[in-house]
């Protein structure tokens, strides 16, 4: 897939800006605060309907504006598609494909595909389980657009069930028990779908991440990636949803009195994690700064490979990554950038970039993007 044109209106610091991207590597340069990352964020938003930086869409709309628009022209499988989304605070997202409104914003998922690598990704290795769950969920959504609504359904069931547990205030009368059993069943069914899809994803992702890491690090270090379930630990790798639902169901029954006492759902995909280990040691606590960066980048490059092998290759977006890397890793990342069908990179100054990145350079200022050098 290739992004031919991006236009943003009232998005972040840009009142209006448009860029025509060539194939291969493009570089966005400009001082801090010029809005380089905001442009990558806009592309990422089209791909995932979320920002890689903030949870709330309101932050994406330029201060004082009523709504923001992201518009893109993409070329995929020989066809040119026009996509646009309008973000309106409080009333959601409106999307159009080739000028025709789509019934639900989620129908846009899958049209634009992007892999975003950003400084925040260090959190995939060092941060809380929530960041790794979000990584898995975002990737699962790009692989399988239906996953997005499964995840929303699960969150809704979880909120209903937690509210019921809280309202029981430590004791459960017989009448409420019958209701809880219904929410148990809904949670088991919805949870099994999420769990199953994440297990399949991790199985497909693991060899690709290992390979990417070993290339980046230039060593045959052992990389281990395991899905850690709050129900079954790292075992129970059969992704059959019926079996997973049964395991979750049994756990809910076993935990009933504890859950009623604490007023919260203690197990399920919302408490799961992705365990990352280097040379048999947990990466979160034992990896060096450079190793953590390489592992985070390997997770992104592995995801990129996976999406590319299963469908249209995503646009590779690299936000300010070169400054953080040593010489050797910088060269390896440059190789990955060159190998992709299309890569867009940001940097404060062009000198940060490895020389072999023979790229189209764009100068970014708020509301203006100018091509200053062709490849």
């Amino acid at each position, binding site marked *: 897939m290739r992004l031919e044109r991006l236009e943003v209106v009232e998005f972040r610091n840009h009142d209006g800006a448009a860029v025509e991207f060539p194939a291969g590597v493009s570089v966005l340069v400009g001082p801090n605060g010029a809005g380089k990352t905001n442009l990558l964020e806009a592309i990422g938003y089209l791909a995932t309907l979320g920002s890689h930086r903030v949870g709330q869409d309101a932050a994406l709309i330029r201060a004082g504006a009523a709504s923001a628009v992201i518009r893109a022209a993409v070329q995929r499988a020989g066809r040119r598609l026009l996509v646009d989304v309008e973000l309106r605070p409080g009333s959601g997202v409106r999307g159009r494909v080739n000028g025709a409104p789509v*019934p639900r914003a989620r129908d846009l998922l899958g049209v634009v595909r992007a892999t975003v690598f950003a400084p925040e990704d260090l959190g995939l290795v060092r941060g809380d389980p929530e960041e790794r769950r979000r990584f898995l969920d975002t990737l699962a959504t790009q692989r399988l*657009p239906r996953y997005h609504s499964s995840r929303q359904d699960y969150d809704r*069931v979880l909120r*209903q*069930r937690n509210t019921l547990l809280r309202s029981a205030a430590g004791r459960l009368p017989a009448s409420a028990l019958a*209701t809880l*059993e219904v*929410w148990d069943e*809904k949670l088991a069914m919805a949870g099994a779908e999420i769990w199953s899809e994440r297990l399949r994803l991790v199985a497909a992702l693991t060899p690709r991440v290992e390979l990417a890491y070993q290339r980046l690090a230039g060593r045959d270090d052992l990389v281990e990636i395991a899905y850690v379930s709050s129900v079954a630990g790292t075992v129970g790798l059969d992704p059959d949803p019926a079996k997973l639902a049964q395991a979750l169901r049994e756990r809910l029954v076993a935990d009933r009195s504890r859950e009623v006492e604490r007023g919260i759902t203690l197990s399920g995909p919302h408490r799961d994690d992705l365990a990352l280990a280097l040379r048999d040691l947990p990466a979160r606590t034992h990896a060096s700064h450079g190793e953590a960066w390489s592992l985070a980048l390997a997770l992104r490059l592995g995801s990129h490979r996976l999406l590319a092998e299963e469908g249209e290759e995503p646009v590779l977006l690299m936000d300010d990554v070169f400054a953080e890397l040593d010489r050797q890793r910088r060269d390896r990342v440059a190789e990955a950038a060159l190998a992709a069908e299309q890569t867009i990179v940001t940097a404060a100054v062009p000198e940060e970039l490895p020389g072999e990145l023979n790229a189209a350079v764009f100068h970014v200022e708020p509301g203006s993007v100018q091509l200053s050098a062709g490849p």
Partner: protein
Amino acid sequence: MYEGPVQDLIDELGRLPGIGPKSAQRLAFHILKVETVDAERLARAITEVKARVHFCRVCWNVAEGDLCRICKDTRRDPSLVCVVEEPRDLVAIERTQEFRGRYHVLGGAISPIEGIGPDDLRIRELLSRLEPDAIREVILATNPNIEGEATAMYLARLLNPLGVRVTRIASGLPVGGDLEYADEVTLGRAFAGRREMPV
């Protein structure tokens, strides 16, 4: 802020579901502009609906008297009961002219977030109808969303041991639509609920 009565009207209209402050203001100024008789007709309709319309004591549909017109209609099969969340769902099913049984309006769906449990719905009233009406089949027609599905499951578990046939309306593809335009969730459900092709 506007002068007293105008602001009062805007505030009252703004309390209606789906009406924001801007719409409330537009409606209020529309009412100010129309003929007095038209405004009075609206006011009367609101007063009358509160004074004359009640809930049917059998099925909890809206009714002008003690019983709604469906429960009064002796041609309808009382042993077949379709359970819906709200009277407007009943109206939607009636428009199909497909169903010749009677209804039961729950008055909502189970939703702990909104503080609605089974006791807040007219479930006890449904149970008390089973024997006197000799109900054979209960058709669950709650909405196909999280709360509607949970309510349907709750009712199915409650009714099954009582020897009543419990069915759920099918969910799937809209008639006259194209497969390629169906969303994945609907299409997935239609697949899961596939049936033998009659020949």
